[in-house]
């Protein structure tokens, strides 16, 4: 049985009379890619802030790597991207060097390693001259410093172009499969999250409305899509076999498929 990496048990939080988290129960297991879904203001970022010790909660327990009392120390095992936190007057490499020292990572080549992963190893300009996509990638590189056991990514695809979004997905899957990292990721792009995560939690109004796995989602499917060369013939065969056609939907290509066909690159 896989180890519980992060557990929130009955977490409550309010700002004055405004309750932002209400009896939040979440369990993220080792090896999971956990997708956190919810609209703006639902409480996703607050959950991340609670996990990272940036927000006090009024009730319940937070366990990181099974430990309640040593959460601050256990946080060293977490890499995270929640906002863009870099000094504008330094280069991307210098910013990561700063965080390498701060995180107590002795291996100086670590900065090169993570810059290579996000393909920023050849960029020499100052952070203030970075595009939004480059800033996001640098944020991911920072999260990867020191090869953390857990990775928290709050909307890592924000501001990225379709190729950038696909790159982040591939990167997350690679980190999970090859390095065994547990990943908690939030995104507004549900199709994207569905392609990436193994388990999901839907946050609504400050509480977890539902938790389910990718398998659960698959079994919810009520219809099967098949591609055939001759649609009329297929319908005739089905009718002759006594299978009633209840619904016929003409399927068009997705914008994503169309985009990648046109400009190149890949989604999977």
């Amino acid at each position, binding site marked *: 049985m896989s180890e519980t990496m992060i557990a929130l048990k009955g977490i409550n939080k309010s700002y004055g009379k405004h309750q932002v988290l209400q009896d939040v129960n979440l369990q993220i297991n080792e090896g999971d890619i956990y997708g956190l879904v919810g609209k703006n203001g639902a409480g996703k970022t607050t959950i991340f802030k609670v996990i990272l*010790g940036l927000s006090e909660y009024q009730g319940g327990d937070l366990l990181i790597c099974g430990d309640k009392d040593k959460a601050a120390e256990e946080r060293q095992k977490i890499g995270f991207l929640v906002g863009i936190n870099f000094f504008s007057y330094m280069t991307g490499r210098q910013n990561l*060097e700063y965080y390498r020292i*701060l*995180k107590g990572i002795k291996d100086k080549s670590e900065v090169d390693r993570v810059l290579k992963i996000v393909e920023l190893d050849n960029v020499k300009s100052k952070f203030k001259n970075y595009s939004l996509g480059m800033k996001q990638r640098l944020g991911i590189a920072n999260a990867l410093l020191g090869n953390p056991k857990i990775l928290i990514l709050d909307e890592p695809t924000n501001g990225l172009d379709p190729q950038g979004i696909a790159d982040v997905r591939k990167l997350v899957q690679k980190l999970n499969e090859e390095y065994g990292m547990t990943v908690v990721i939030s995104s507004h792009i549900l199709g994207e999250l569905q392609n990436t995560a193994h388990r999901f939690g839907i946050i609504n109004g400050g509480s977890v409305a539902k938790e389910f796995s990718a398998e659960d989602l698959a079994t919810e499917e009520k219809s099967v899509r098949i591609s055939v060369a001759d649609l009329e013939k297929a319908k005739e065969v089905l009718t002759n076999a006594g299978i009633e056609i209840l619904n016929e939907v003409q399927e068009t290509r997705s914008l994503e498929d169309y985009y990648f066909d046109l400009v190149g690159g890949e989604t999977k």
Partner: protein
Amino acid sequence: MMRYLKADLWRLSKRIPRIITIILINIILAVVIIKGSQGDSWNSVFFMDKLLKGFSMVIMGYGIVEFISVFSDDFRAKTMQVAIGAGTKRRHVILTKWTDCMVLLAGDMLFTCIVGLLTGAMTGVHVNGEQIMDLVINFLGNLIQSGGYYSLVMILVFHMQSVMIPLLVYMFLSIGLLNSVISSLFYIDAIQKFHLESFTLTNAGQSFISRLIVGSLDFKSLIVMLVYIAIGYVVSSLLFKKKELEF
């Protein structure tokens, strides 16, 4: 905490405007000393007088420069949040920031001592051991006093999560404006009988330096300054402990 301190000092060493400002301040000081040396009566006594007066002036400038350097970029980039998220305890964040200011200020002051003494030597002045000791006493007294100012201002910094108002308060403290306002209260009859004059940070610092120069350690003033540092740290820690930090 040491990792955070090391990282912060490393990144501050890359902050070019800060370095340029420190160099400019020292060039101005050197020019003032050289200009002062052009009279006939120029000797080590005049030189030390000019250097010590200049010294207390530049410390105010350094205090402001280092305060901005340590906090303004940090609040803009919200890197403090990353440090906490990476496992740094909040009270260690406060201690690190205070130590940042103190280390940088001490470094700047040391640089000014070297520049001042070298400039003096260039003008043909030879300072004796006693005069060097006066400089060391001023160095220590001003450093501890500034430590008190930083510590008190950090209450506002960590509570307000901004730099502007705390910076103004720091300036009022270091130029003695707040001390003058508070000292004026001591003339009120009801307060006068308590003889509180020696308990302000600025007065304690001045008393500590002047008494040490004549060879006696003003233990009470030293304790007063250290108590201010401790109060600043404790109150900041309490206010920052449950502070909501935004990304």
